[in-house]
Structure formats: structure tokens, C-alpha cells
């Protein structure tokens, strides 16, 4: 479903982050990517999302080279097939939860029917009219998860989604995310530092200078 | 800046008496109109009291009183009071009551050795509205609240007060009037039309009050009155003018003047000496001689004045000594002239003889810048 072919990427100042990275992700897989700080996890996510272009190599989504698309096409692709969960939640403060979750549907001009369902699924069914400032961090991330999946994306990218949360809440959120990704049949990429978080994924990959490699399984 | 030298050729006679005029710059064009005035002629007979009064038909006329006063504590003071009537020669056909046909100009100066310099003030007004006039028939001149009046009995009343000084004097004649030169026809130059009508009243007995800084001081003394009127003008070669009028202690009266030539020497001179009994000796130009004996440089204008003067009239030698040196009058701001007019004491053949006033004009030279 997602193919990374010979990706090379250097920062503007010349430091190489990704070298000859090649990996293929199958549809429905949920992978966690771990790695040291500065190794290029966020860069990799940006490349996958089409928000950045590789110096060489290709990112293919269902066979389409995303790095070859122009901004509008890439945006269109993101809109339809991607879902995002951020460390800092990024929920629009002046939109209600319902409106926040409805955003991707609106962008895709789809029916808003699924909003209430998603609200219920993330456990906020009676709070759709609330504003984000009335919510706790965990609750905000539930909203973000609902928003990331409401339009049934093919690929969900989560960047340290529990970085701002306490361990109990983090566990809840990771379970919820996994459940939602699986129940929506999406492919998921979870970038995290946390082994506990990574453990909720099907496969754990380590990003190093040499590329992406399956980590030694550390099942507890 | 007006220089005595360049102006003098245009002056009417006598210099000083005209330099106090605000309109001292009479040009040739101004004289073109002089035909409308009467000429001064030798055979005119002065008649009184009519000739005490003003003479509208002549261009210029003045009453000029100078004298020595003494305060109650025997301090000497000199004073000078002048009223001019001047016909502008303009506006004869203007029906406005404001039309400036005649001007009245008055001048008051006080020499007080205690002050060390001359105090003076001058005023000008157009005749009209009974605020300023010189009446015919008898001496009656007014300039706002300044008045100079001859009463029926021959007394003169002077009332002139300014902000910080002034005087109220009563002048009583003690002698006959003195007709100058040829029965009051007084020549001023080699040409016969260079002349004026001129009489004097010497030995006027003065009583009254002098105000200094608004404080009245009772005074008494002796004064000399000149009344002169004329139309014609002075010789163009004239450079300046020295004049003296003195009441002598023996009751005689001396008047002498010379008109100096630009090249030195004199254009004209005249003197008359009347003794107490009324006998007058006249002196012709050759018999009159002015010789400076001491000069004083004015710190105000740098002009050099012969403030001490030796005068010879015929066989008689007179020496004039000033009451104070600084009796210079600088009226450039208004009148445009600078001259010296001061109280002097006289000796006759080296013996004290009397007191009088000396007038020195044409000595101011513009400062070299």
C-alpha cells in the first residue's frame, strides 16, 4: 500500500537524515516507528504525507508516486486518504468538537453522518457541542483520533500522539487508536519514542541511519 | 542715516530750530511750492500785539525760550522751550478737518547738572480740532496739553508736562522787546531774501515750578524769548550754525550768531548788544567772530562740539563756558538731527558778565562704520 523506494533526504544545511531508505507497508498493517532523536522520524512522516519531497527516490501510495504530485494533488490525496494525529492535538479552538471532527468530511464533501458515530466511538458522545478549551489533553486526543478516522482514510499517521499524556491516558488513547485504525481497516504508522506505545502496533520498526529494520520483539 | 553735513544745505534758518522738525528733509521740490508763502522783505514794519501772534502766510515760525533757573536750594538749572508752527505746503484744498496744512512742533529740554545730561522731549501734531494750534493776534500756541500763551498784560504762561519731567513757568517782561537787525528784518545770508522777521524779549523774569520725576520744585530765574518767522531758506554753502543769546548781569542783552561755510570761514554773522537803558549796538558780519576754546566729544554720537567758545563783537571779547558738557540733543529717532543746545555762563573781558544759551549745529558727523 505504501512503498518507500531508495529515499534520500538531507536537511537544508546538508546533513543527511535518510539514506537509501526502502520499505513497503501492506494495507491494514499498523506499524510503529522508533528511533533516536534527529534520526529523521518526522522527516519521514512529512515525506509520506507529501508535505516534503525527497532529494531522490519515491514515496508511492497505492502505486502513485506522491512526490511527483503538485501541491494541490498532494493535498487532495491527503484530504481523502490520510488521517493525522499530532502530539499537540491541534484541535481548532473555536470549533466545537463536532465541528472539529466534521472537518475532513466537509473537506471531502461527504455526508456528516459519521460524526456522531465517531464521537460515540471515542467516548465523547454527549460532548459534541463543547469547545476544545473545556477538554482535558486525553479528551482532546480522542477528538483528534476521531477526526483522523472520520473520513475512513487509507493511512493514519500519528506523531507521538501520547507525548503529552500521562501513562494511563496514553494507554487508553493507544488502545483507542489501534481499535479505530483496525475497525476502519486503515493502515497506521505510529511514530513514538515509547516502547510501550510501540508495543500496541503490529510491527515495530527501528529507524536508523541504515534504514528501517524490524526491531527485536520485546513483548512483555 | 541723516548727516548734518548733507542736510544742512537744505535747512531753513536757523538750523537747530528746524532740526527739531520731524520733517527736516526739505528738498528742492518742497520749495517749489514756497511761492504760495509770503517773502520776507526789508521794509515790513512789525506791529504789536499782532506780531506776537502766528503768521500763517509764512512757511515757518517759532517761539523759542531759553533761560537759567535756580531752585530754592540755589541749584542752577537750564531750560529750553520751543514751539514751532510749520506750513507743510500740502493739503491746501483738502476739506478734511484732519488735512495736515500746518504742524505744531514743541520741544522741551532741561539741563540739570545733578543729572549730568540733557533731559528732553519733543512732540508734533497737525493743527486742528483745537487740539493743536498757533493763533493769530497774540502768542497763543497749543499742542495737546502743552501750552504757551501770552496774556494781555505781557506775561507768558508755559505749561509743558511729560511723563517724568515738565515745567509750569510764568515769564514776566522786565524790558522792552528787542527788534533784531533792521527793525526786525534779520538777514541770514549774503542774498537779501535769506532773512527772517525776528524779535527777542530778553530778561524775562521767571517764576514757577519744575517737575522732575513728578516731584515739583519751585524755581525762579531769567529767560530769553525769540520769536521769528520766515519763508526763505539758508545759503547752500552753509554748513552749520552757532548762536548765543544771553541776559547779562548788568541788564544788557547780547545776541550773536554765525553761519559757518562748508569750507571753513563764515557765510554770515550778526550780533546785537543792548544795554540796560535800551541803546543797541549792531555788529556786521566782519565784526563778529566765533573761536572755539575747548571741545567736547560726545560719547553718544562721537560728534565734537566747541562747548567753550570765544566770541568777539567789535572790540568786546566774550568767553562762554557750559553749565555742563553733555547738553547734546540726539533726536535722530524722531527729528533726525543731532546738535548741542546748552546753558552757558559768559565772561566779558574776563569778568563774569551773565548767563545765556549757546546753540551749536552741524557738528555731528556720521560714525564711520
Amino acid at each position, binding site marked *: 500500500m505504501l512503498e518507500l523506494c531508495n529515499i534520500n533526504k538531507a536537511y537544508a544545511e546538508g546533513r543527511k537524515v535518510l539514506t537509501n531508505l526502502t520499505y513497503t507497508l501492506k494495507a491494514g498493517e499498523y506499524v510503529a516507528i522508533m528511533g533516536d532523536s534527529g534520526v529523521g522520524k*518526522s522527516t519521514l512522516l*512529512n515525506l509520506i*504525507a507529501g*508535505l516534503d519531497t525527497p532529494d531522490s527516490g519515491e514515496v508511492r501510495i497505492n502505486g502513485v508516486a506522491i512526490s511527483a504530485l503538485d*501541491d*494541490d494533488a498532494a*493535498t*487532495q*490525496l*491527503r*484530504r481523502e486518504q*490520510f*488521517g*493525522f494525529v*499530532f*502530539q*499537540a492535538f*491541534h484541535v*481548532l*479552538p*473555536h*470549533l*466545537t468538537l463536532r465541528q472539529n471532527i466534521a*472537518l*475532513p468530511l*466537509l*473537506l471531502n*464533501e461527504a455526508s456528516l453522518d459519521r460524526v456522531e458515530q465517531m464521537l460515540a466511538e471515542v467516548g465523547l458522545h454527549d460532548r459534541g457541542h463543547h*469547545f*476544545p*478549551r473545556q477538554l482535558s489533553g486525553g479528551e482532546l486526543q480522542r477528538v483528534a483520533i476521531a*477526526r483522523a478516522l472520520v473520513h475512513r482514510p487509507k493511512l493514519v499517521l500519528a506523531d507521538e500522539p501520547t507525548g503529552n499524556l500521562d501513562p494511563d491516558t496514553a494507554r487508553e488513547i493507544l488502545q483507542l487508536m489501534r481499535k479505530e485504525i483496525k475497525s476502519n481497516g486503515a493502515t497506521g504508522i505510529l511514530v513514538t519514542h515509547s516502547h510501550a506505545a510501540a508495543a500496541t502496533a503490529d510491527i515495530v520498526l527501528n529507524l536508523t541511519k541504515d534504514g528501517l529494520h524490524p526491531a527485536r520483539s520485546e513483548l512483555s | 542715516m541723516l548727516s548734518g553735513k548733507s542736510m544742512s544745505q537744505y535747512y531753513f534758518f536757523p538750523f537747530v530750530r528746524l532740526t527739531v522738525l*520731524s*520733517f*527736516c*528733509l*526739505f*528738498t528742492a*521740490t*518742497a520749495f517749489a511750492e514756497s511761492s504760495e508763502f509770503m517773502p520776507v522783505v526789508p521794509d515790513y514794519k512789525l506791529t504789536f500785539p499782532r506780531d506776537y501772534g502766528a503768521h500763517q502766510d509764512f512757511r515757518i515760525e517759532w517761539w523759542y525760550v531759553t533761560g537759567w533757573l535756580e531752585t530754592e536750594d540755589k541749584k542752577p538749572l537750564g531750560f529750553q522751550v520751543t514751539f514751532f508752527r510749520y506750513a*507743510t*505746503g*500740502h*493739503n491746501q484744498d*483738502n*476739506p*478734511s*478737518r*484732519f*488735512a*495736515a496744512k500746518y*504742524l505744531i512742533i514743541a520741544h522741551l529740554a532741561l539741563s540739570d547738572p545733578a543729572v549730568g545730561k540733557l533731559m528732553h522731549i519733543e512732540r*508734533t*501734531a*497737525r493743527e486742528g*480740532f483745537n*487740539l493743536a494750534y498757533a493763533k493769530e493776534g497774540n502768542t497763543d500756541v497749543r499742542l*495737546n496739553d502743552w501750552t504757551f500763551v501770552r496774556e494781555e498784560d505781557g506775561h507768558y504762561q508755559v505749561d509743558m508736562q511729560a*511723563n517724568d519731567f515738565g515745567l509750569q513757568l510764568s515769564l514776566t517782561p522786565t524790558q522792552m522787546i528787542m527788534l533784531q537787525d533792521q527793525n526786525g528784518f534779520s538777514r541770514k545770508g549774503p542774498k537779501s531774501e535769506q532773512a527772517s522777521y525776528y524779535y527777542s524779549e530778553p530778561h524775562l523774569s521767571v517764576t514757577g515750578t519744575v517737575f522732575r520725576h513728578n516731584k515739583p520744585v519751585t524755581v525762579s530765574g531769567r529767560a530769553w524769548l525769540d520769536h521769528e518767522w520766515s519763508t526763505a531758506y539758508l545759503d547752500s554753502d552753509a554748513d552749520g550754525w552757532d548762536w548765543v543769546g544771553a541776559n547779562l548781569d548788568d541788564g544788557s542783552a547780547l545776541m550773536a550768531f554765525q553761519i559757518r561755510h562748508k569750507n571753513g570761514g563764515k557765510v554770515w554773522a550778526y550780533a546785537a548788544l543792548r544795554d540796560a537803558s535800551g541803546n543797541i549796538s549792531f555788529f556786521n558780519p566782519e565784526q563778529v567772530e566765533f573761536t572755539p576754546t575747548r571741545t567736547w566729544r560726545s560719547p553718544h554720537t562721537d560728534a565734537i562740539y566747541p562747548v567753550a567758545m570765544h566770541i568777539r563783537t567789535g572790540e568786546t571779547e566774550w568767553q562762554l563756558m557750559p553749565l555742563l558738557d553733555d547738553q547734546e540733543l540726539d533726536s535722530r529717532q*524722531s527729528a533726525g538731527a543731532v546738535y548741542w543746545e546748552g546753558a552757558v555762563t559768559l565772561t566779558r573781558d574776563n569778568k563774569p558778565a551773565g548767563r545765556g544759551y549757546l546753540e551749536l549745529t552741524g557738528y555731528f558727523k556720521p560714525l564711520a562704520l
Partner: protein
Amino acid sequence: MNSISLFRWLLFGEWRAHMVQLIVVLIAIAVGVAMGFSIHLINTAAFNEFSAASKSLSGQSDLQVRGRKAFFGESLYPMLAGHEGVALANPVLELDVVALGKQQNRNDHKLKIIGIDMFRAAEISPDLLGLPEEGKTLDRLASDTIFLSPAAMEWLQVKQGDSLPLQVGLQTVTLRVAGGLVRARAGQRLAAMDIGAAQWRFQQLGLLSRIELKLKDGVNHAAFKARLTEELGESYWVSETTDQETRIANMSRAYRVNLNMLALVALFTGTFLVFSTQALSVIRRRQQFALLRVLGFTRQQLLRQIITEGVILGVIGSMLGLMLGYAVAAMAIQFLGGDLGSMFFPGVKPSIYFNPLAALTFFWVGLSVTMLGSLVPAFEAVRARPALALRSGSEELAMAKLSAPWFAVICLSFALLFTQLPPIFELPIFGYLAIALLLIGGIALMPRFAGWVFSALFVKLHHRIGAVFTLVLTRLANAPNQAAIALGGILASFSLMVAMAIMVTSFRISVDGWLERVLPADLYVRVTATGDQGGFQPDEQKVISELPHFDRVDFFRTQPLTLEADRPEITLIARPIDQTDPRNTLPMTDDMIAPALLSEGIMPVWVSEAMVDLYGYRVGEKVTLPIGATSSEFLVAGVWRDYGRQFGAVQMQLADYQALTGDSSVNTLALWLQPGITLEEAIANLRQLPFGAALEISRSSDMRALSLEIFDRSFAVTYILEIVAVVIGLLGVAASFSAQTLARAKEFGMLRHIGVMRWQILAILAAEGSLLTTLGVMLGFGLGWGISLILVFIVNPQSFHWTMQLHLPWGWLMVIAAVMLVSATLTALLAGRQAVSGHVIRAVREDW
């Protein structure tokens, strides 16, 4: 940690990061201060020069005696000169004489000639003594000479020795330019000559304009004035120099105050911009401040940080403003003249005088406003609980506190109350306060209003709109405070513009209609009155009325009349008036008594609105006016509208006037053509009269056009001020949009992540901009309409004493609205274009 260097890091860091906003704030402060300061400078310069010029004419006198009419008999002069206590009486005859060849220049054709007795004037007004050619001192007393100020020489194109033809009635008097008035003020057109000569040559024998008195030392001025006033009776005015100054000040006061008010209004718009920019900048950094608090900044430290930042901005901006204001004033005076082209201070060439106190005042205003903009949100930021403030979205809460609705309601209520209050010192102070409060209240109410409108809109539309509009509307509805701040500038400037447009249009239409009423004839023929004489004597009147071309000829006798010493003269107009219905002759208001009620026994007068305001004349009352040898009683029969003479005018029957005064001369003739005669023929015929060359002939159409042209010119400066206000408003839009774009970087970044196109972000910005502007324009229209009501029905009647009807310039308003909408949208777009730049995407990773 060194607190100074920490302070500097924070400050410079902030400024480096937001250079554009920093510059915008500085510009806003500078422009606001500059506007106020430059108008103040121009006004003061013009007024001081005008007043100094007037004062140089009246000299250093202690008292002045004038007649109620412009001229009085000279017999008073010797009486005063000899009066006890008077040191010097200086008679003056002042005349405005038409310079030949300048007649057609209606507003600028007269030369002021002062007739003096130089010996007396020398002690009171020595500046009026001419400087003759050397050796021609007597020229000062001559009957054929005149001395001109340098400006007058330049204007008349003459020099010393030239002949100067002047028009007196229907004759020409030629005088010789004998010299200059070297001490006249720059630009002052002035002539002096001998008083006797002036009386004679200008046919004013026996007349004087005034007598100036110098009192003797120690005389009590007030007591002497009172005694003399009583002695002279009611035909004369005794005034002190200060009365004179009051009178001059009164003449232009309304104009000056109104201009100053406009400047203040502009400053107010600027103020709002400064406030909002500064407030936004503080609010945007709420989270940063919260962090600083968390890290251990005390409240005081934080407050000091924010305040110092405001002070530095305020000082720099205000200094820039003072410099800019000075430069603008200097240029305006250079190119437009001291009255900004309105001819309010004629013949004056002012130079700017830098008054440190005024500069300091404007400096303070600029600084305080900036401070206020920092302080209010700073206090809020300091008081906020850091943990809460760290959360994004809390800005809106902070701003909600700044716009409590009760505040707006109080402002609006007071505004309403103030419209009901009378003027203070004859100035519409409360009217202006009401305008300010209306604006403040309107702006303060804006967030509520915006929230309400956009919510309603969203509820109505949300099924039918896409993502972009959902985003736009929800944001506008749910975050109305941020929106409203952007809107404040637009609202203020647009409502002012609307108000001015309505006022000026109402005024212009009223004036146009009025001109039609007051200029009914085809031709008007004038001979400028010189002194006390109307130009046309009965013989000439007869000649003209017997000309064959005219259906009807009306005669007018106009002259100035002083009713109160410290007020400018009123105008007395004697003319035939249709007594059965004065509306046929005069532009009457509704305030008049039925003609049938006029009794035979008392002469009627019709007074202008200013007479009602200034002198308290009421219809039906009897008033005493000094017309003729003694004062007579008149009945106020009606009030008419007069846009020409703000100091008051009285009209009466010509027959009554002639019976009272015996003055049979007139100044102006109104001529109605017979059918079939063209204007050109009629004018040619008039010109062929023996005195034809001296006539000033005007077509009523030309006069109307000229009047309107002058009208437009005097409002030119208000247009300029309006434009500046709009630019400031747009600057405000730019500032707040760019600030918000930065603040919303993460929002836009997230939107871009989840698939919002670049153009959609721009569309969001444009839609927000235009929706806000539309709302601002609508609300601004309402506010502006309210303000225009205050201007038309309160400010104008109270300051100029004339009323007008309200007219709305719909077309013009629509155009302004459209221009405003487009420019605000574009501004929002331009300011927000960073929102689509690459770093926005990365902003999702910033935590602040």
C-alpha cells in the same frame, strides 16, 4: 540570570520575529499623532498670524472706541483727546477699498487702507508709519500718497513711485505709492495713508472707524472704561485690547474647533488601531507569558516587561509622529495656505511656530494610547492562571474580558444623553462627545454583534456550505472578539466617512437650494461700498432702473453693524421684502409670524438663524437695533436660513431703512431680464453706462457656481482627513490580519495537513476579510448615520448657527462601501499570505 539582558532578549526576540507588526504599530502611532499635531500646528499658525496681523493694526492701545456702525462722526475725537485720563487719542479711519483690475476676484479684491494721523499713530501703532523715499518725508502727510505693505505691493504689482488706481464708488482715485510699510507682517496686505487724505479721497469726510486711547499712568482701565461707556451712551463701544482678541478668536473659533475635532477623530481612529495592534500583540503571546510565569517570572516582572515594551514603542512612534506632523503642517502651509484652502484666514502667510507644550501634549496622547493598548491586556495576561493560559484557545477568553457589553451600553446611553445637552461656550462639546461615545460604544458592541450575526448566518446556512465557509463562519461566530478587533479600524473609519459624506451632502444640497432662493434675479450688479457710502447714489439708481432691458430691479443696502463689542459684526441688509409673504423673498425657516399679524406701528425685521442663537432673538419679540441716528425698535417677524454669514444677519425693508437713516445709496442691484434679452446684451448695456467700468456684474449662475466651488474647497481638508482615516482603518485590518495569521499558524498548518488546499486557506482569509468588512460596513453605516445626525442637527447649528435638511448620498455611500470591501478583503489576503507559506506546515510541531 541578568534580568536586563533577559528583558532585552525577550524584547528584541519578539521584535525581530514580528518586524512587520512592529512597523505597523509604529506607523499607527506616528500617523495618529502626526494627524492631530499637524492640524493643531496649522490651525495655531494661521490663527496666531491672523490675530497678530489684526493686532498690528490696532497697536498698543489701552482702549478702543468704536461706533455700533462701522463709522461714526469725528466730533468724538477732540472730545476724547481732551478727556481727563486720556494720554493720547489716536483717530483711525479704516477702509476696504477695491483695487482696480481686481474687482472680478470677488473674495479677494479689497485692499485694507488705514488712515492715520502719523504723529499720534507713532505712539500706538508705529508699524503703520510708511517709509518714504529719502528726502520725501512730507509724503507721509500728502493727500495723494499711499504706503503699501510688501505683500500688497506684490499683489497689486506696484512699487514705490507707481500710481495706484483705486475704485471709490463709481469713481477712480489714483494715488502715488510713496513707500512701504516695512514692518507689516509677511503676507499681510495693507496700506496706510494720512487720515485727512483718506477722508477726502475716499469721500469719508467727517468720519472715523475707531479711536484708540492710551490712558495716563495710574488711571484704572476698568473704571475708566466703565465711566466712558456710560458717558458715550449706546451708540459707541468701548473695548479693551483683550475684547478685540476675543472678537478675532470668536470669528474663526467654530471653524478651528471643528477642524481640531476632526483631527481628534482621526487621532481616535489611530488610537483604536494602536490599541488593537498592541493588544493583539500581547494577547498573541499569552501562552509565552504564561510560560514565563511558569518558569518563574513574577507578575511584576512580566508587567514591567510588557509595559516597557509599550513605552518604547509609544516613545518612538510618538516622536516619529511629531516629526511627521511638523513636516505635514509645513508642507500644507506651503502649498495650501494657513486656512487649508478654505479662505478662512484671508491675506495671511503664517509660519509654523513650534510650541513645545503642544508637542508634549500630542506626544503624551500617543504614548498613553500605546500604553493603554499594552496595559489592559497585560493586566489580563498577568492575572491569568498560567496553566490555563498555556492552553491554546484561551486568547478568546482574554479578549472577551476586554469587550464587556455593559461598557458599550453605557457608552451608547451617554451618547444619547449628550445629544440632548446644550452647547458649552457656544461650542458643541457634547455633540462631539456624543460622537466619540457612539463610536466607542459601537466598536465595543461589535464582538457581540459579530458573534450574533455570524452564528445566525451559520445556523441558517450550515447545511449548504462547504468546509471553507464552515471554517469561516464558525470562527467568526465563535471567536468574535479577534474578528472584532480587526474590524474596529474599519468600523471607525467607515462610520466617520459615512457621517462626513452625509453631512457634507446635506450641507451642499441645502446650500445649493439656498443659493437658488437667495439669488433669484438674473444679474447682480455691485459697486463695492467704501466706508459708509453705498456705491450707487439715487441718480445712478435711476439711470439703471430706467434701462430698457430689465423687468424688475431690486435695490439692496448692506452694511456691517456691531451689536456686541466682543462679537464679530453682523450684516444688515435693507431691501424690498414681500411683506405679505416673506417666503417669496427670503429662504425662511418655518419660524415666522403670519404676515397678517404684523402691525403698522412697528417695523419688521427678518433675522438669520445665527441671530437667534447668538443674540437670543425670538420671533414675535421686539428688539432694538442701532439703525439711523438713534436706536429704534423692531419686531422680529421671522427667521431665515443663512449659510453665508455665520455671525448673524438682519434683513429689513429698504423703505424703512431709508426713512430711518436718510441714506439713499445702495450697494447692490438685482436685475431681472425682460424676455428675449440675453445676459450678454444686458451686460454690454450696463458696461456702456458712464460708470459702467466700475460695476461688478455677476450672473447669478456664476455666483452659484463660485459659492459651491468655495464650499467644496473648504471641505477639501475634511476629505483628506477622511482618506487618512480610511488608510488608518485599512492599516488596522492589515495589522490584525497579519497578527492573527501568525497566531493561527498552527491552525492553518493542521488544516494543510488534513487536506485543505492552499487556495482554500486564502479563500478562508478572503472570506473572513470580506464578511467582516461587510458587517463592519453595515454597522459603520448605522453608526455613521447616527453620527451624521449629530453633525447635521447638533454640531452645525451649534457651531455655525445654521440648520439644514438631511440628504443621504446613496450612490456615493455604495461606492465607498464597495471600495472599502474590496480593499479590506485584499488587505486581509495580502496580510495573510504567510498563512500558505511552507513554514506553516511545520508550525504544527511548535508548541507555541
